[in-house]
């Protein structure tokens, strides 16, 4: 049985020839086939391709020519990451049959490193949601409790990993879409600084906020994946030419004297007392190891959700204007009278309700007469939120908060009330607005055996420091070793 192993352990086993990539892959593919019907973590399983890729990795192993530390290790990609020759739906009916003729940069880098792809994972349509309930391919169920959501939008990636069908998974995070599902599924997830990982070939949602990052079982594993996917890409002009440090080799660091900011705005009414207790316990662990906790204030936190639901739909409505049914997309049903009618029908039949809601909101806030009241105002408040963090980081090294106000909620509980769903992201959106990195670490289980998550936020491009601090926690505790029994 390999499923209990971490990515690092599998990688070491392959490199030392203790086992073959095809042996690891056979188990991962088998588990995917067995568990996916109940969980719906994957939109498309790619078992046959994985078998082939694993056999090729076997040959490289035998010849002593492994391509990277990830070579031969099974992993999954969120279905908004476009993959050449493999259907990439963005969980939308409008792209239901879309087979891209190219790879996203992140996919290309991972294939070049030897990815054995278990499949393309479920998400809210165009990553629009916090629960994976808004997928055109059905809801993803949480492996800890199948009556509950896995979080979103990268819920499929999180559930696939928590169900131990793969050893790492790629997700995207625009307002919390990696951190929230990582927290709900009890695994480790990283939202990188904006620009750290190329967005080229990943379906755009909100272009000034979108980031791509890994889920894994441990911080060490995250570091190994980040190493491969980070860096400048000429195809994405927002990726700076910043050196990619050897994240995995520099994880050990004494946290004595580390200054941790605890923002009072994140410990307020609405936060589940159980989650608060677990998060505070985690911070105590750091204190015991010599870190210093300091209460801080991020006064503009309470406006983050409001500006997110202006800025994101504005950018989304512009990005989704390209789905006109001409170069790609759905062939609409019914008689088409003219080109405008073709747009109407394609987009009406192709988009689901949450995406339509957001396109309408975005079109509204950008329209003449409302631009100043909403869009300009939101971008100004975004500056104030960014400055909140800059001030805080002049006093403390990192900031610790809960990832979400509560553990995974029941399927259907929030899907008919957009605002209550939007508030699930209240603790993850501020870091997205500032473009800074944040880690989601499992930090305990509630009385109902549901995972809770600790969020650690660091300054822009301080991924190395963030990973060191997260790694220190996983050396002191075992929460990251808990998996649902399935």
């Amino acid at each position, binding site marked *: 049985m390999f499923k209990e192993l971490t990515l690092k352990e599998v990688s070491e086993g392959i490199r030392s020839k203790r086992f073959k990539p095809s042996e690891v892959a056979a188990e991962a593919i088998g588990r995917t086939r067995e568990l996916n019907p109940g969980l719906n973590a994957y939109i498309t399983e790619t078992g046959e391709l994985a078998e082939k890729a694993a056999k090729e990795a076997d040959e490289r192993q035998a010849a002593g020519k492994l391509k990277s530390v990830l070579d031969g290790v099974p992993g999954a990609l969120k279905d908004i990451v476009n993959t050449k020759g493999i259907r990439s739906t963005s969980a939308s009916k409008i792209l239901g049959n879309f087979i891209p003729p190219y790879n996203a940069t992140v996919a290309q880098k991972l294939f070049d490193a030897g990815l054995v792809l278990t499949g393309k994972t479920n998400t809210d349509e165009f990553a629009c949601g916090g629960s994976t309930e808004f997928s055109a391919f059905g809801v993803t169920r949480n492996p800890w409790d199948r009556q509950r959501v896995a979080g979103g939008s990268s819920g499929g990636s999180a559930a696939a990993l928590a169900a131990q069908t793969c050893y790492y998974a790629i997700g995207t995070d625009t307002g919390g879409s990696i951190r929230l599902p990582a927290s709900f599924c009890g695994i480790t997830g990283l939202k990188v600084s904006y620009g750290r990982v190329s967005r080229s070939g990943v379906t755009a949602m909100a272009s000034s906020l979108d980031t791509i990052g890994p889920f894994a079982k441990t911080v060490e594993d995250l570091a190994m994946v980040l190493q491969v996917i980070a860096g400048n890409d000429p195809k994405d002009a927002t990726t700076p030419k910043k050196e990619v440090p050897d994240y995995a080799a520099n994880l050990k660091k004494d946290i004595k004297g580390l200054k941790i900011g605890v923002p009072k705005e994140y410990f307020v009414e609405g936060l589940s007392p159980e989650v608060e207790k677990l998060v505070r316990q985690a911070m105590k662990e750091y204190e015991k190891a010599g870190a210093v906790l300091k209460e801080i204030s991020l006064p503009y936190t309470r406006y983050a959700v409001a500006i997110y*639901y202006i800025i994101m739909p504005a950018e989304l409505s512009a990005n989704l204007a390209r789905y006109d049914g001409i170069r790609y997309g759905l062939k609409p049903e019914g008689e088409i009278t003219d080109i405008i009618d073709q747009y109407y029908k394609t987009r009406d039949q192709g988009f689901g309700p949450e995406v339509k809601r957001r396109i309408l909101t975005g079109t509204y806030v950008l329209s003449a007469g409302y631009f100043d009241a909403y869009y300009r105002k939101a971008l100004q408040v975004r500056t104030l939120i960014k400055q909140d963090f800059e001030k805080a980081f002049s006093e403390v090294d990192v900031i610790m908060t809960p990832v979400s106000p509560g553990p995974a909620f029941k399927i259907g509980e929030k899907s008919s009330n957009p605002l209550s769903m*939007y508030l699930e992201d209240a603790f993850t959106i501020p870091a997205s607005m500032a473009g800074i990195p944040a880690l989601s670490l499992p930090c305990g289980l509630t009385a109902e055996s549901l995972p809770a998550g600790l969020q650690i936020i660091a300054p822009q491009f301080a991924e190395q420091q963030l990973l060191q601090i997260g790694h220190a926690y996983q050396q002191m505790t075992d929460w990251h070793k808990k998996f649902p029994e399935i």
Partner: protein
Amino acid sequence: MASPKKTVNPQQNKKVDAEKIKHIAHLARIGIDDREAEEYAGQMNSVLDYMKILEEVETKGVEMTLQVNGLRNVTREDRPLMEVPADELLAVSTLPKIANQIAVRAVIKEE
């Protein structure tokens, strides 16, 4: 969690009604029916009501943040970075192709 404690000038934002939703939907080229227009109007109003908390914030003289990593005028050589054969690109479209082009409905109609 950010929940509105007070609302300022509750009358300032005109309510969005089904007619307005239909107009926006037309601008966004989404065909919607009356039932959907009513539903979206209600939901959009509750979201726009929530956004009124922004009226509490004084933003006079505050710059807008449109991007966060400070890169400016990123340029590169003007050549394609991805070579995708034309037939593979065309194959993605569901519409008929004529002479290596996608055939679409007439845009300009004769009256």
